[in-house]
Structure formats: structure tokens, C-alpha cells
């Protein structure tokens, strides 16, 4: 904690930038910024309110020079304690930065400041017939800056992706006060995407270029009731794996239904245990109708007891009112509601739900289950009274048990709410110490002094007594050979040229020892129900696409030349960012790193997967990748043959690229010429 005298000398210069009335240290302001929507509490020492985006960088420079920690904050609605100033210091109140700079429907981009409320943006886009895809439940109040910080999702992200799939470019003030503008299309590692979901620990977004989408002409919303949750979840898996991509696929259990009055509003049959709400969108009415009929058939095959498609806008609104009314109804039953946020691969939903229910009943807690079924994202809403310490303890314990169960089932601990401070401890259950150390080193590369939202996301001290045994990375024989070889080379300091299929770099071009990944060309895992594929990096894209086609699946990547790993590492198709769920990486020293996984949503830890997009093999070697695929039924889906290969742009590494290189490959052993070594 810094003392007031640390602020004293810089107070005047801060006041000169933001105005004296916006540098507040009075007791009231401090108290009012010591909480957010979560349960953690800590007092900042000063609250700085910004009235123009260009005030941020000079203020950060001053705070950095004075070694005062800072936490960017907007609406303060996050559910994980992310905006709490754990080390005191300054709260950067960015809420007044709420300009919508530009709405460009031709280039399909909206340029906004971080304080713009999600719904305000939607309202501004509506007259043009456009929308911004992420639609978190809090969209009435949560801001774009906060949505970026937490990588927010929402019901619609099943079809349109989460925040990180919908950002084009970011202007960022680094923890040292420099202004950077990064796009995921920039040559080299994707620093922009790496910022998303970093909860303000890597820098502060001051301007965002967001992807906007033309509103589909028609919506078709249906409700299906089941007498068992298991059957409902089976139907979910079947719907998705049959190639249907709903705009939203939401599920409610009987407690939620009861609370929201769903049983009587829809006259559901007695004994209803689960309700699915399935919404389709598109511009072809007949097709939508057909799809809704297919959904009805699938539900019937899984013993649905009720199915109804909304015939009017009014009926549609009734369905959503039931879904959206569930949380409010719970919020009336007790002073506090804890919304858990675990994620599992979709086919594991029945098991996850069963375990969640057992945990809740063993801790004698009342909760409703309410979730984004299509994404495998579970939101048990546990009600309690935050003043009852015993009850709070039980709620916390139950919450942790639920997260552990998600981890055991191959899932993760947060789909969209973030880690903040409240789930920090669970990071050590999900990741081994090596991966945590890796995350820590990434943070240090961006924020060497540890001033930007300190002590968030990563556990302070690693306590792996509670580590949930996760299956060790099942690396293929080929991958193990690569790791062995790298270890040997690292010992002798031999530099490596990473060679995929040889379409991008020729072995003769550099005087370093090639390492060929050509034989790393197997399809490792095709999960038909989860719609994911895991394949080794050396497999050619055309070959991967062919094999998938044979099995009745498709990959939304154009028929590129070159290998899977090469395509990712050279970023020849930047949109691959939306398909990429996980990577196995061989680091320069021969250790393996498992990043991401099979879940569609994952905001646990830094999105390091993105750093390897465009890393050109200089940060680590991609051994295998897990990607989202489509069922071939989606034929005619324009996403199947997206516009072709882009020529990789010439990459000139700059400051932050070097910083990361220093952390990831300090000896400059991999593709050394990129970062100035001759090899």
C-alpha cells in the first residue's frame, strides 16, 4: 500500500490533467469505490475520474513513475471482484468516457469509448439495422470497456461468438502509459486479442473498433419442455451436432421455471423438469421453419413433453420474459444471488448438472439452474444472505466444488464472468504450476512493476494441494519426439528453424537447423457431439478439410495451402481466431504447454492461444490445435468457404513483441532471424 505522501507530490500534476474535482481522496468517494457486484472489498486511496480519453495515458505515466498501482473501472458490475483495488492505489473511473465516435455500416464497424453501455450501443445501431453480437445479461448497465476486460458473452454468442470474436481493433494505454493501437489482423502475434479478457491487468482500453452485424430479417423462437434434465441436455447436444446453429439455446430447470412463473404462463405439463428456449435467425423464412421443425423432431426423439414455436412477436416475448425473469425472481427471494459460471464440453452437460445438483443439496442451498446450454456454460443461481457468515461459507464452498466438478469433466472455471479475485484460488486447480508461471511471465512482460490491477487472475501463492488431477497432456509420439529434440538443442544452444509443410519458409533460406513438423500430421480427436477437432500441426489444411468432409463435418477455413500449424503461426487466415479453442505448444526449452481446451467459452487466465496466432514459430512450436467445426448439414453456410488466403504481411517486431519473446524464448532459439538473431 502506498501512503498518502506518495500521492502528495503528484497530486498537482494529476489535477492539472483531469481537473482538481476529479482527483478525489475524500472518505465518501473511497468508500464508494471499495466494492463492486462481487463479495470482495478493499479501499483505494484515490479515485480519478476521466472526462477525456486522452487524459488516460499521461495519468498512467505519472502513476507508473510514482509506483502507484491502479485499477480501471467502469460500471462495477463484474461478478468476480475484478474492480477491487487490492493493493490500494488509484481507481481509474472511466465511466464518463462514453462517446460513440463512429458507426460505419459500410465497413461494419463501430468505434466507441470504453464507457459506452452495451445497450446504448445496441440502441444506436438499431436504426441502421445493425447490432453488436455480445449481449451479456447485464447489457443494460455493463459497458464495452468492461465487456472487453471480461471477454463477455451472452445468449447470442452461441452463433456470433464472444467479445474477442467481435473486436476489430483496440487502442490501449499500456501499464507504462504508452498508447498502442493493435488489430488482430496486424502482422505478428495477436496482441489485441491477448488484451481481451485480461481484466485490466495488461493495460487500459481507451477506444475500441467493434464488429457490427446486419440484423437478420426473421427470428423463430421455440420452447421445448422435458420431464428430465438429462433428456433436455441430450436434445441440446443432438441439435447442435446435427448442424443447426441457433442464435441462442438457453435452458432452465424446474426451480427457475417455478420462480419465473413459466409453468403457468406456458401451461407446461406436470412434472416438467427442464425447458429449452431455442431461437433461430436468418433471412430465409422457409428455411427457418424447416429448421424449427427439425428441432421439434429432435426434441420429440428425446422425449420432450411439450413443444411450441412462437407464432407472434408477443408469444416470443413471453418466452424470453420467462427466461429473463428467472434471475430477477431469484433476486427477490434473498438479499444475495451467487451466479456460478463453470463451463464443460457440451456433451458433458448431463453429468455436470447432476454433480452440481448433488453439491448444492449437500450444502443445503437453494439454487436455480439457468444456463447457456448451447455453449455448455452453467449458471447455478445460488441464493443466500451475505450477512450470514455461515451461509456465505457454505455458498463459497459449494461454488468451489462446482468448479472442481467442471474441471474434472474437462471444462473450465469461468465462461464469461472472469477470475478477478474470487476465483483466483481455483486457477491453481485448473492449471499446473508451470502454466501458472507461464501466465505470470506474460503479465510481467506487459507490466513489469505489477501496477495494473495487481493481484488479479493469478493466485498469489500456488497451493496445489487442491489441484484437481487433470489428465496429463496426452501428447502423440511425434510430439514427444519434437520435445526431446528441442530439449537437446536447448542444452547445446542450437537454434531451430521451424518447418511446417514448407510453403512459407524454405529450409535453405536460413543457416539454422530445421525442425520438420511434416510427420506431425494426424487427426487426434474428432468429437462429433461437441463439434470440435484436434489435429496435429503438420497436417495440411486441405487434408484436414478432406478428412472432416469424409466424416460429415466441415472446417470454416478456406482451402489454404500449407499446414494447420503454419496457417495459425503465419496468420494467413486471421479469422481462424474464432475457431481456435486450444493449442498444445512446445516451448523453446522443450517443455510442453497446454493452452485452452475443448470448451467453446473460456475466460480462465490469459488468452495466450492468441499470442501464437501470427507468432511465426518464434514464441513456441505449435504441436496441435483444437478447432470448432461444423456439421456438414450446415451446407450452404457461407462461413464454410470464407474469402481466401491473405498474403502474410511483412512482420517487423516491435517493443511488446520483443518483451514477449524475451519471456517465451529468452535464448532466441526458435526462428531466430525474426527477432534479430542471424543464427
Amino acid at each position, binding site marked *: 500500500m502506498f501512503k498518502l505522501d506518495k500521492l502528495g507530490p503528484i497530486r498537482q500534476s494529476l489535477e492539472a490533467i483531469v481537473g482538481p474535482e476529479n482527483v478525489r481522496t*475524500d*472518505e*465518501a*468517494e473511497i*468508500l*464508494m*469505490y471499495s*466494492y*463492486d*457486484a462481487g463479495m470482495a472489498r478493499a479501499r483505494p486511496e484515490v479515485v480519478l*475520474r476521466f472526462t477525456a480519453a486522452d487524459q488516460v495515458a499521461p495519468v498512467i505515466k505519472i502513476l507508473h513513475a510514482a509506483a502507484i498501482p491502479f485499477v480501471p473501472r467502469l*460500471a*462495477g*458490475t463484474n461478478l468476480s471482484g475484478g474492480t477491487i483495488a487490492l493493493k490500494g492505489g488509484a481507481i481509474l*473511473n*472511466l*465511466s*464518463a468516457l*462514453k462517446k460513440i465516435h463512429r458507426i460505419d455500416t459500410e465497413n461494419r464497424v463501430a468505434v466507441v469509448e470504453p*464507457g459506452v*453501455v452495451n*445497450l446504448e450501443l445496441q440502441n444506436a445501431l438499431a436504426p441502421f439495422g445493425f447490432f453488436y453480437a455480445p449481449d451479456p445479461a*447485464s447489457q*443494460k*448497465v*455493463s459497458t464495452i470497456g468492461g465487456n472487453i476486460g471480461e471477454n463477455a458473452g451472452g445468449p447470442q454468442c452461441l452463433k456470433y461468438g464472444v467479445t474477442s470474436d467481435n473486436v476489430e481493433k483496440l487502442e490501449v494505454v499500456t501499464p507504462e502509459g504508452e498508447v498502442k493501437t493493435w488489430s488482430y489482423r496486424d502482422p505478428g502475434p495477436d496482441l489485441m486479442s491477448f488484451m481481451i479478457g485480461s481484466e485490466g491487468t495488461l493495460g487500459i482500453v481507451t477506444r475500441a473498433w467493434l464488429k457490427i452485424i446486419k440484423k437478420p430479417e426473421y427470428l423463430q423462437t421455440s420452447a421445448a419442455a422435458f420431464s428430465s434434465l438429462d433428456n433436455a441436455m441430450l436434445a441440446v447436444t443432438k441439435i447442435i451436432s446435427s448442424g443447426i446453429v441457433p442464435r441462442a439455446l438457453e435452458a432452465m430447470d424446474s426451480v427457475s421455471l417455478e420462480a419465473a412463473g413459466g409453468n403457468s404462463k406456458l401451461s407446461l405439463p406436470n412434472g416438467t423438469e427442464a425447458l429449452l428456449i431455442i431461437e433461430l435467425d436468418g433471412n430465409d423464412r422457409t428455411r427457418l421453419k424447416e429448421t424449427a421443425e427439425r428441432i421439434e423432431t429432435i426434441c420429440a426423439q428425446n422425449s420432450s413433453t411439450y413443444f411450441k414455436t412462437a407464432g407472434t412477436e408477443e408469444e416470443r416475448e413471453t418466452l424470453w420474459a420467462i427466461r429473463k425473469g428467472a*434471475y*430477477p*425472481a431469484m*433476486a*427477490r427471494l434473498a*438479499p*444475495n*444471488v451467487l451466479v456460478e459460471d463453470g463451463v464443460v464440453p457440451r456433451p458433458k452437460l448431463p453429468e455436470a448438472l447432476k454433480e452440481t445438483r448433488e453439491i448444492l443439496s449437500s450444502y443445503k442451498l437453494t439454487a436455480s439452474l439457468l444456463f447457456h446450454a448451447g455453449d455448455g456454460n452453467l449458471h447455478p443461481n445460488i441464493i443466500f*444472505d*451475505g*450477512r450470514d457468515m455461515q451461509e456465505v461459507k457454505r455458498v463459497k464452498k459449494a461454488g468451489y466444488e462446482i468448479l472442481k466438478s467442471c474441471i474434472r469433466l474437462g471444462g473450465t472455471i469461468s465462461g464469461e464472468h472472469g477470475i478477478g479475485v474470487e476465483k483466483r484460488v481455483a486457477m491453481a486447480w485448473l492449471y499446473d504450476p508451470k502454466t501458472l508461471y507461464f501466465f505470470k511471465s506474460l503479465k510481467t512482460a506487459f507490466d513489469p512493476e505489477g501496477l495494473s490491477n495487481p493481484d488479479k487472475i493469478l493466485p498469489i501463492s500456488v497451493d496445489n494441494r487442491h489441484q484437481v488431477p487433470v489428465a496429463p497432456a496426452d501428447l502423440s509420439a511425434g510430439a514427444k519426439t519434437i520435445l526431446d529434440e528441442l530439449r537437446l538443442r536447448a542444452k547445446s544452444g542450437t537454434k531451430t528453424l521451424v518447418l511446417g509443410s514448407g510453403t512459407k519458409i524454405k529450409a535453405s533460406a536460413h543457416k539454422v537447423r530445421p525442425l520438420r513438423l511434416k510427420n506431425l500430421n494426424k487427426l487426434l480427436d474428432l468429437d462429433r457431439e461437441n463439434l470440435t477437432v484436434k489435429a496435429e500441426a503438420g497436417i495440411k489444411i486441405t487434408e484436414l478439410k478432406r478428412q472432416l468432409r469424409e466424416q460429415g463435418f466441415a472446417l470454416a477455413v478456406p482451402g489454404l495451402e500449407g499446414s494447420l500449424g503454419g496457417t495459425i503461426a503465419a496468420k494467413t487466415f486471421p479469422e481462424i481466431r474464432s475457431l481456435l479453442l486450444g493449442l498444445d505448444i512446445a516451448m523453446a526449452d522443450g517443455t510442453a504447454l497446454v493452452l485452452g481446451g475443448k470448451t467453446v467459452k473460456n475466460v480462465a487466465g490469459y488468452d495466450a492461444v492468441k499470442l501464437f496466432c501470427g507468432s511465426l514459430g518464434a514464441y513456441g512450436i505449435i504441436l496441435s490445435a483444437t478447432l470448432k467445426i461444423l456439421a456438414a448439414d450446415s451446407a450452404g453456410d457461407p462461413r464454410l468457404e470464407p474469402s481466401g488466403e491473405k498474403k502474410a504481411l511483412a512482420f517487423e517486431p516491435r517493443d511488446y513483441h520483443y518483451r514477449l519473446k524475451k519471456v517465451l524464448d529468452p535464448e532466441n532459439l526458435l526462428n531466430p532471424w525474426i527477432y534479430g538473431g542471424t543464427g
Partner: protein
Amino acid sequence: MSKYEINELYGSDSEDRHLKTLLTDLGERTLYDAASQCNRCGYCETVCPTYMLTGRETISARGRNQFVRLLLEGKAKNTGNAAEALNTCLLCGACTSACYAKVPTADIALEGRRSITGYGNSFFSKLAVETLLNAPHIFSIWLKFVYILKYLGLARLAGWLGLYDFLGIPALADAQKAVGKIPLRFASEILKKDPALSARGKTGAAWAYFAPCGPNYIFPEVALATARVLTKHLGEGVFIENSCCGLLANNYGRLEDAREFAKKNILRYEELKASLGDFAVIGDCSSCVAFMKTYEQLFTGDEAWRPRAAAFAKAVKDILEIIPPEKVTSSEKAQSAGIITYHDSCRACHGQGIRYEPRSVLKKLAGQQWRELPESDWCCGGAGAYAFTQSAMSNAILKRKLKNIASTQAKTVVVGATSCLIQINGGLKAAYPTATAIHYSVFLDKFGERIG
């Protein structure tokens, strides 16, 4: 009582100046339980005008709730620190409308205010409230004196003499700026003498008109219009010859005085009821009406008065909700009102949930000339004395309202509360002089005809 240990915000000697319990949407609650029902989701923030204009948690709905809670929990030590947070509350209640659990933030903020040392204790406000309570005729004389000074072009002299403060209703100070005409005969004086509105000789009445201070002292034409509209649409009725409803005393720290006002009105109601049977008590200032609908809350610690207050509150109705849309038809004259829009007075839409009825009536009367006002349920910044006590914030809020009005190109803005009438007209006069705000009753009186 709460099962948790909490700080006392006040000593037992000032219990009379506080509410015993709050009557919330979820039932009767202690202050601590009511404030703790807020789980800090923040959904109220984007409807809170003071938060939206500043982005400061400290002057937001959630912040105000938390502040009172922190005081109760002893985590905030000094009530005085809460002054800015609590005094900037418009008491508009938009937060409660947005809240899933309907946490009564305005009531919680008021309870907090009452804990601030010295709040409501100023000599002048005490004296004025007491005069209004015990000797309304003397209050009238002072007020007329102020009005005469204004009439003679000596308004500044009145200001200089501190007369507005003396009257304890600082909104009146603004009224003298914003109101063009000044009444020298108050509505109650006129209505009292109207034999048609007298209770004498009547054995029943459909309604009793309650004249709130605004229509009574500042806009008698509104009160007279309301009486005519009620007669036209509901048949025979009476003037209740009421006292002030007590809202100002309630909001400015004099809760025990507010109870006295309430008792006077309840007694008067009971007296009339004995001879007239059941009738609706209809007022034409939504702030006062909304407050009277919550009279029961004033007496949660008083078993004798509580049921009587509840019975009174049940009879209270707002002029905005009482005229059935299907019974109204437009007269030709409505053309002259130009484009018509409606501003939801906070205490009508948030305080009483009245949105549909006045809109339906106005839409019917306005026909093609109707325009929906964007953000119509955003406070105008008037909020009783707020425009005076927090003038900078009030102006900023007003500016947004005026921008929205301008976007409709309205000539006529219909409102339902005195404070809105003063505030919006003051703003329009300066920024957008082709438009005027008029009271719902006046509009109906001019342009509405009864069907059948």
C-alpha cells in the same frame, strides 16, 4: 427485528424523526434489511440521472444504498460523509423501478439524510414548516408578500431579505423566476367558496379534490381545471379543504411534522367519510399523491394510526390515473396545441406506476399530433427543492430533458406535477420558447370531452 448486530444511526431521543420500518415491495422491513436486499448488481445505475451525468458511484442509486448500509454496519464512521451522496438524490425512484427486488432507495436515502446532524433543523425551515402546519393562513400572507414584491419588480429584495429561505420552500424561489403570472388568490380560497364543491347537504360524492401546495399556492388555474375536469368526467364531488400533504417536511428532515400533516388530512378525510361514505381523494400533483399513498409507512410504529393511514392511502388517487381513456374524446380545438408529448413525472411513473392511463388519454386527444418523448421517465431535475439546493446538477438533468423535448418538436409538453411544471417551463422559456409545459388537468379541461 433484524437478527444482525448493527450500528444505531440515531439515539432513542430522535426516534420520532425516523421511520420505524419501511413498507417495501417485499414486505415490511427494517432499514438494514431493506438496504441489504440490494445485491449490488448495478442495474439501477443506468437509470439514475445523477450517475448517468457524472459516472460517479458516490452519487448513484447503488452508492446511496451501500452508504446507508455501511453506516449501519459501522464500516462508514461518519454520517456527515454521506451528505453529498444522500443530498444529491432526486428521490425520483427510477432505481426502484429498475430493481428486481424493488429496493426502496429513495426511502433509504431519506432515512440516511435524517441521520445527518442538523438536517432539517435550520431555523427558517423549521419555522416555515410549522407555520404551514399550524397557521396556513399566516403562511399565505407571507407568500403573498413575496409575490407582491415580485409583482412590484422587487423580487431581488425578497431574495435579499431571505424570504424564500424563510418560507422553507426554496422551490418557490425558483418559482418566482419561472412563473410568469403570480396568483394573488390561492386556489383553496376560491374552491372553498364554490357551493358546488361544498360537502354541506351532500350524502355522497364520487370524489374529493385534494389541493396540493403547488396548485394551491402557485398554479391555482391547475387546481380549478382539475375541479372542472373531475366534475365533467366523474360527476359531483367536493373540495376536501386539506392541509399540506407533508411531503416537504418528510423530505427535508422533519418527519414528526410530516406525521402531523398526515394526521390532519386523515382526520379531515374521516370526517367527510362519515357523511359522504366512500369516495376517492384525488390530487393533481403526483409528488404529493404518491406520498399520500405511502402514509401508512409514516405510522409503522403507531398501531392506532397505522390502519387509519392505510385506509386513507387506499382512497388516494392521482388525476393522471382517474380518467378512463375510453370515456374521453377529442375536441376540435386540440389542433391549436400543436405537437403534443408527455413527460412522466417521476412520482407518477416510478412512485405510482402510472404510465398507461395518461398516455392513452393524451394519445386519443392528440391523434396525429402525438409524439412519444424519448426518455420520458427521466427526471426533469425539478424534484421539489432540488432545483434550488443542487442547482448545477439540476440544470444538467434539465438540459437532457430539454434536448429530448426538442427532438419531438413538441409545442405542448403535458406533465402531472408542480415541480416538473416549474422546472420544464423555466428551461423551455430560455432554450426553446415555442414550447410550453402544461398540467394534465389544464390540457384535459381545454381539449377533452366526455363520451356518454
